[in-house]
């Protein structure tokens, strides 16, 4: 509370000192759909001051009454809107922005104040969802996370994987928020696709460093994904069918202008398509059975505007992946059966209430629920005609469940200050892995139901924050903040005070120099096996024995907009991490021993340079991103305690993304990526040992002796993806055929390497290093209609 006091006093001061001014506030939205626009620039040319809309499209700007003439609103992809506010007193001004079509060739002369170099926030990238949808994708499935992997400072884990490694961090260090709710496992199909359905998404923003104080709980990045609110005026829909599945999205008004809804679902259909063949295959072996894999997800959102001051949003996400196998064989009057499955999925929900307390103070109250669950099991037994079934079943469940509440205040006393403060509390329920063993039998006393494994652990995470984005003078702008966090677990309370500062200084010729410093602390840990985005990842808390992960990061760089819309930035960063968690050598997942005995904690450091040029508008759009980076780890019981390269230490990482609108009917896109090969550990020698004593010895085993950890580099990775969209607009709908290919020139990109020893007919052995590649050229075709 002591921390909040200066801000409350400050608010009072601003109220008094700016009593002679007028305050204009309101929402900015898309004229056609009513979707709120996030980050829309609101600029007052007379005073050369401005602000931006918040996550809910709300803005507030306070001006001298004499100055007030025109307010300009601008947003990427929309026509600029200028509104005359002469003579207007304080009040509400809701603004509707008209979408700009590429071929209208409207000249946008962006004023200096609206350019990205004017923001204090650095290391942040917004990729318009329309651009993400045009990027050619593996199997034609648009993927938000894979699009983000093409940005500097962001890497993928491996071929086709959707995991994000941001500035040397690991995937658990990314705070992925879907409508403000953390999503714990963002993977479908073992990481080859992410859980985010692009058709339901309005906005994507990634923060890699210089974290504002309102964010906390993760070390490496914040990825904010906001779902569309739903068209508030007309009913619309999208349907698409592609190589692996199909999607359907419906949106429209519930009460015109007041409330709207959006529902979007997708499901893979390969299991349905192959089911007759698989069943026939079982039948030909004299049994009944089925096996397959599918995933589905559903996004839904409703919102209602109660008044100018109150809006309510309810959003939901549910998704599941499932492998299944079932077989039944009949023997006389009995049937033996076996079934096994592996399923994982997330469920999230958020109830948000936006309330404008007064024209300068905006409150968002959120209640959230998030759950990730992994479930795998096997059952086998016999069904009898006249007797109860005999059954033995083992089931393993692990996961995490969160209930959270938060209050976020946005206070804009004048154009020189944008103050945010708030608090949140999260109740975590960790399930580190429980086995359920069931036995059903007609034999008296032989039925059995037992539970083994780790104890479910509860923990409470708290946070308080306050930040002010303010102008020190006309050239220097600072975002100063403090994040206070606490974590209560095992009767132990951890507390942390995390200062955050970002600064922007305007240099001559339109350059801006930006610097930032942020400390972060993370109380929850992901225990993951390196390499694949397996659903077996375990989320675990900080405990009395396992310390919270911590980091600090410094970044500095220059930004400038060249020409009309070429945003160029260059940044350098250094990040130090401590108490990182990893499995001890060779530890396994399905073990009954305490997970705390299976992990080790260590340090990490990452540093590098990033170059980014982005063009968001016009017929040609896209970006070029280059990263030069170093990324090391140190664990006392690994590599003789010496620093070693992180597996995803990638010295060079280059992405070129381009989209070009040939005509209203045809657009093409392409991406080319290049990355230094992943670091892996290879054996350099081997020796024999005998595993029993005695005169005659025992079995000889050959042990491989490894060189330094991650001391070998796999071959560099490079790939070209291309795509073309044919769009045809009919009277009632627009249809799009999308064709493309992943890894167009079929480069043998390394997935993993291993030693293989061949023996010839004379018994001579030859050992070779083999490389396994995963994807050759993968073409895709997709059909979509929008109505």
């Amino acid at each position: 509370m002591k921390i909040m006091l200066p801000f409350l006093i400050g608010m009072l001061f601003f109220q008094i000192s700016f009593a002679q001014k007028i305050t204009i506030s309101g929402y900015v939205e898309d004229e056609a759909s009513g979707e709120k626009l996030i980050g829309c620039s609101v600029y007052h040319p007379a005073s050369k001051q401005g602000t931006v809309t918040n996550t809910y499209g709300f803005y507030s700007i306070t001006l001298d009454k004499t100055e007030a003439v025109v307010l300009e609103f601008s947003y990427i992809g929309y026509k600029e809107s200028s509104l005359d506010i002469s003579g207007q007193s304080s009040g509400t001004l809701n603004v509707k922005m008209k979408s700009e079509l590429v071929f209208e060739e409207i000249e946008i002369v962006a004023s200096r104040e609206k350019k990205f170099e004017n923001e204090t926030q650095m290391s942040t990238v917004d990729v318009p969802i329309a651009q993400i949808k045009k990027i050619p994708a593996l199997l034609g499935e648009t993927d938000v996370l894979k699009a983000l992997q093409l940005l500097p400072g962001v890497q993928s884990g491996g071929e086709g994987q959707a995991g994000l490694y941001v500035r040397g961090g690991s995937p658990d260090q990314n705070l992925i928020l879907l409508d403000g709710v953390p999503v714990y496992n963002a993977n479908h199909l073992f990481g080859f696709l992410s859980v985010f359905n692009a058709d339901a998404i309005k906005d994507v923003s990634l923060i890699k460093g210089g974290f504002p104080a309102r964010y906390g709980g993760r070390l490496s990045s914040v990825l904010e994904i906001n779902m569309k609110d739903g068209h508030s005026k007309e009913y619309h829909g999208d349907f698409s069918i592609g190589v692996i599945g199909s999607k359907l999205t419906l949106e429209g008004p519930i009460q015109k202008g007041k409330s709207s809804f959006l529902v979007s679902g997708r499901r893979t259909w390969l299991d349905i398509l192959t089911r007759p063949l698989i069943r026939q295959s079982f039948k030909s072996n004299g049994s009944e059975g089925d096996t397959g894999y599918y995933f589905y997800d559903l996004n839904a959102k409703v919102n209602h505007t109660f008044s100018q001051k109150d809006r309510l949003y309810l959003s939901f996400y549910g998704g599941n992946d499932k492998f299944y196998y079932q077989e039944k064989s009949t023997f006389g009057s009995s049937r033996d059966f076996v079934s096994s499955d592996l399923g994982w999925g997330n469920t999230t929900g958020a109830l948000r209430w936006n309330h404008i307390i007064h024209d300068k103070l905006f409150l968002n109250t959120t209640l959230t629920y998030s759950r990730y669950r992994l479930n795998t099991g096997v059952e086998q037994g016999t069904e009898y005609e006249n007797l109860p079934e005999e059954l033995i079943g083992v089931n393993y469940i692990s996961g995490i469940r969160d209930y959270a509440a938060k209050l976020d205040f946005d206070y804009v006393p004048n154009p020189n200050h944008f103050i945010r403060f708030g608090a949140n509390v999260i109740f975590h329920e960790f399930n580190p892995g429980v086995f359920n063993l069931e036995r059903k039998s007609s034999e008296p006393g032989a039925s059995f139901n037992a539970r083994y494994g780790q104890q479910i652990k509860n923990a409470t995470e708290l946070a308080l924050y306050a930040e002010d984005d303010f102008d020190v003078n006309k050239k220097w702008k600072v975002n100063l903040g403090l994040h206070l966090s606490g974590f209560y677990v095992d009767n132990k309370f951890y507390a942390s005070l995390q200062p955050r500062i970002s600064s922007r200084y305007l240099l001559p010729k339109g350059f801006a120099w930006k610097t930032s410093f942020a400390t972060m602390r993370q109380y929850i840990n992901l225990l993951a096996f390196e390499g694949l985005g397996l659903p077996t990842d375990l989320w675990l808390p900080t405990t009395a024995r396992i310390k919270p992960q911590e980091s600090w990061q410094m970044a500095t760089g220059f930004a400038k907009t060249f020409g009309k819309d070429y945003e160029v930035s260059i940044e350098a960063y250094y990040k130090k991490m401590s108490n990182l968690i990893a499995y001890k050598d060779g530890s396994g997942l399905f073990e009954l021993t305490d997970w705390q005995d299976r992990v080790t904690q260590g340090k990490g450091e990452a540093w590098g340079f990033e170059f980014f040029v982005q063009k968001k508008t016009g017929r040609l759009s896209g970006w070029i991103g280059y990263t030069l980076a170093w990324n090391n780890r140190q664990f006392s019981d690994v590599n003789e305690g010496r620093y070693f390269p992180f597996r995803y230490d990638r010295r060079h990482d280059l992405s070129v993304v381009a989209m070009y609108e040939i005509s209203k009917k045809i657009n093409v896109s392409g991406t080319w990526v290049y990355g230094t090969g992943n670091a892996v550990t290879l054996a350099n020698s081997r020796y024999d040992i005998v595993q029993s004593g005695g005169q005659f010895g025992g079995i000889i085993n050959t042990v491989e002796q490894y060189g330094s950890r991650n001391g070998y580099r796999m071959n560099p990775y490079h790939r070209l993806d291309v795509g073309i969209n044919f769009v045809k607009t009919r009277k009632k709908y627009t249809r799009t055929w999308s064709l493309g290919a992943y890894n167009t020139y079929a480069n043998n990109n390394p997935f993993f390497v291993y030693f293989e020893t061949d023996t010839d007919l004379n018994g001579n052995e030859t050992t070779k290093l083999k490389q396994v590649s995963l994807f050759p050229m993968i073409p895709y075709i997709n059909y979509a209609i929008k109505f």
Partner: protein
Amino acid sequence: MIKLIYKISFLTLVFGLTSCEDFFNTTIDIDPPVYEPTIVIDCIHEKSKDSMYFRIARNVGVFDNNTDFREAMLSDAEVNVFVNGSSFPVAPVNSVFSHNFMVDFGGDLQTGDEVTITAKHPGYPDASVLQKVLPSSEVVSVTFKEDGGLDSEGSEVSLISVRINDKPGKNYYAFRLLELGLFGSYNERYASSIDPSVSESYQNNGLLISDTGFDGTEKILDFQVPQMNLESALALLKVEWYDISEHHYVFSRALLNHFNSVDNPFSTPVQVPTNVKGGLGSFEIKTLQVLELE
């Protein structure tokens, strides 16, 4: 709609198949990795035995093929064995066996004895290892229960319970179950435990026990064995109970994890630890108690 799905699938299949020949597995040419030639000392000895057999060998490069375990032996190495600083004569062993040296102590080693093996060979750094003879732990009882419920795979099991008095300080044990075979010899029999103090090891090293969770207290350790009746169990089974060093505990666990990880490209490589100074391998002197079931 179904037609459309099949059309899409067909096109994808045709494009896909034309692009994947000889793609997935390729050979990478790399220079042989540099490694340091090192002496390997490999010995597991039981305290109660008069003669100790061991192997002095070398490591070979990962691309050095056709080097079997005999060729890697350094039988011309200069080897010495000391007990509490006193030298014992070392004799070569016929190389058809997996060991190439032995030493006769002329009697049991005593608790607290320090045994050192040193090995020298031109072209290799000197290697030496010291191991201390451990005292026997106090085993109070070993009981057998015919009906021990189900194991984690749903099979009916019997239960062997070992009650021990653990001494304060770090202690490590190993459990092996033996069954009398047809020709009077004992064979190792499978046992498992869900007790978190118990973990698996590689091959003949039994189940490993760490006293981390019960240091200095009396402890009952339950071991599940495939179900058998009490009469047979008493007649056929016996338990080997070992006191082992911390190194051997860590080494045996690492060895299991090492072999589990070698063929898994996604696992973190497991480096097998050594207690040999200047070399590789492992030297262990176990203290054995053979326990009859009650």
